[in-house]
């Protein structure tokens, strides 16, 4: 098991390194001149001074080595070109938790509600409950999250004035974004849980459990649940990782000061140091969560734990 984790981490570091390198060269080599956009009206000489300050006058390769050195030695993700004095580290420090809170809260709802609905739907296969749940799932999957967000905003906030339209800080501000974020996920977890449960309940060992004299409740609790959740656990990995990347739109719509909000802003501002810094940080979060989930997966499914351990 330790060896497996070690290998996984080594591989992740390689992935991160490649992402960082690729991002740097792609973004640094992208069309558009951020300095010209920011201080285009200044005289050429003044622009050159600013360019020199950010090291933009040096070749890309050299800037790359400087950047990587700073990143690895001091954990410096870079300073914004557009907003003087503001660094990617500031954004990461103050805004990561905002995105994480919304994302994790939404994920929690997605998983718990999704698993329960999927289980109920599968265990009542063909009955009205099943049809209703399946209908709602299809509906929820077919509606983009920004449409949900708009609808919620329009009715709950604008028409009925139950919650604020946007803003951030208090508990009531969580309602709309979390709900809009959770709906699509609930639908897909329900869908996967349903099909996973259906395939588990047709397994031979469920017949064995019934033949032992397990009541229906016990069969579900002791035999169905754990086995049907295994494929769901694999989905949670990328989902946790995607929390930060998936909230771009919602953060923008509800003006939530999260990572995604600043990332989209950086992209539209062509703030290239910010983009590079945040991208690398996103990748770090993403790859890191994948590893955590891989390890968790081993805890849930003994087959993986043992075979991977033996290798």
């Amino acid at each position: 098991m330790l060896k497996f984790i070690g290998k996984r981490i080594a591989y992740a570091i390689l992935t991160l390194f490649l992402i960082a390198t690729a991002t740097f060269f792609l973004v640094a080599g992208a069309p558009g001149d951020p300095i010209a956009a920011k201080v285009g009206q200044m005289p050429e000489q003044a622009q050159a001074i600013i360019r020199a300050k950010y090291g933009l006058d040096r070749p890309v390769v050299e800037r790359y080595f400087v950047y990587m050195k700073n990143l690895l030695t001091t954990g410096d993700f870079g300073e914004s070109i557009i907003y003087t004095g503001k660094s990617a580290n500031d954004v990461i420090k103050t805004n990561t938790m905002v995105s994480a809170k919304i994302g994790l809260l939404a994920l929690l709802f997605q998983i718990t509600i999704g698993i329960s609905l999927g289980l109920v739907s599968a265990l009542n296969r063909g009955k009205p409950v099943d049809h209703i749940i399946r209908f709602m799932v299809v509906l929820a999957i077919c509606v983009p999250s920004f449409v949900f967000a708009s609808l919620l905003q329009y009715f709950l906030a604008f028409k009925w004035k139950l919650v604020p339209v946007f803003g951030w800080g208090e508990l009531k501000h969580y309602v709309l974004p979390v709900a809009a974020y959770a709906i699509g996920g609930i639908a897909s977890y329900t869908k996967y849980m349903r099909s996973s449960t259906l395939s588990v309940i047709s397994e031979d060992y469920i017949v064995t459990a019934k033949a032992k004299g397990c009541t229906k409740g016990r069969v579900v609790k002791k035999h169905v649940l754990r086995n049907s959740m295994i494929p769901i656990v694999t989905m949670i990995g990328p989902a946790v990782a995607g929390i930060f990347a998936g909230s771009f739109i919602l953060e923008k719509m509800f003006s939530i000061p999260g990572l995604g909000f600043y990332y989209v802003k950086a992209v539209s501002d062509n703030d290239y140091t910010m983009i590079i810094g945040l991208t690398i940080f996103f990748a770090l979060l993403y790859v890191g969560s994948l590893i955590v989930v891989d390890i968790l997966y081993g805890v849930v499914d003994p087959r993986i734990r043992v075979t991977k351990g033996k290798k």
Partner: protein
Amino acid sequence: MSEKILEVKNLHVSFRTYAGVSHAVRGVDFYLEKGETLAIVGESGCGKTVTSKAIMGLLPESNTIISKEEGAQILFHGENLLDYSEKQMTQIRGSKISMIFQDPMTSLNPTMKIGDQIMESILIHQNVAKSEAEKQALEMLELVKIPNAKERMKQYPFEFSGGMRQRAMIAVALACKPEVLIADEPTTALDVTIQAQIMDLIGELQKELNMAVILVTHDLGVVASVADRIQVMYAGKIVERGTVDEIFYQYSHPYTRALLDSVPKVHTNNKETLYSLKGTPPDLINPPTGCSFAPRCEYGMQICRQSYPDVTRFSASQECSCWLHHPKADTKGLPESMIRRSVD
């Protein structure tokens, strides 16, 4: 004659499928005595497994029709299990009647320790503490001859070989020392050498626990050494039954003969080709009128395709449903042993 602990009367089971209603079991009667082994033999799809699952009450509720109106009964110690509620059935399953299945690779829960799986039925049916259940489970695992039982208790099914898993499966089924064990093709998925070991084990445990066993199989070879009585099923009906000797040496139904001929024998002449029965069992959605075996029977007569033959009894234990035993039947070319007369 010893006590009949299980009696199945006029059992009809049908399934609703998307193609129509499939009549899997069409009027089956039999009994099981204390401590004996009854073998139910037939090709796949003849209704053996459905019959055994019906006894356990394990058929899917949603699409199964068991004809209680036509007088179907499954009597266990004289009580009709078909009238039992689901709750009452859970008390019977695993404690009084147990079942083991064909494929040991898939019939154990992959995410539960072997020990826990054995303990589960003890904890459900007996009011004992966990430590006591653990002790009993360990004894069970030793009883089915799994070496290092103590360590094995903590392992998962994927760490067991096929034969070991079937042993564990037997331990699960017998944990509460049931009166009846239904073994559904217990050796089909195993290697030949392991097959004999598992059959011997079932035989030994049967004597030790004084259980009655219903052995469901398609392989007459497996049956010969362990069964007391055999009944042969075809297309949802019992076509012949008798003691082991009667079935092997005095068989009276052409289908029994076909089954026996397709078992390779030690003394089979090299030049002889192994007999193979042509065709497949009939479509049970529209079962043929008359004898369902008629289309595949080399001795088939006009009447076979028109009406179903009633039972002819040859001895206290042997009976058969075949028109060949009618006084007017054309017995030309039949083996001498098959030309029998009713005792009634």
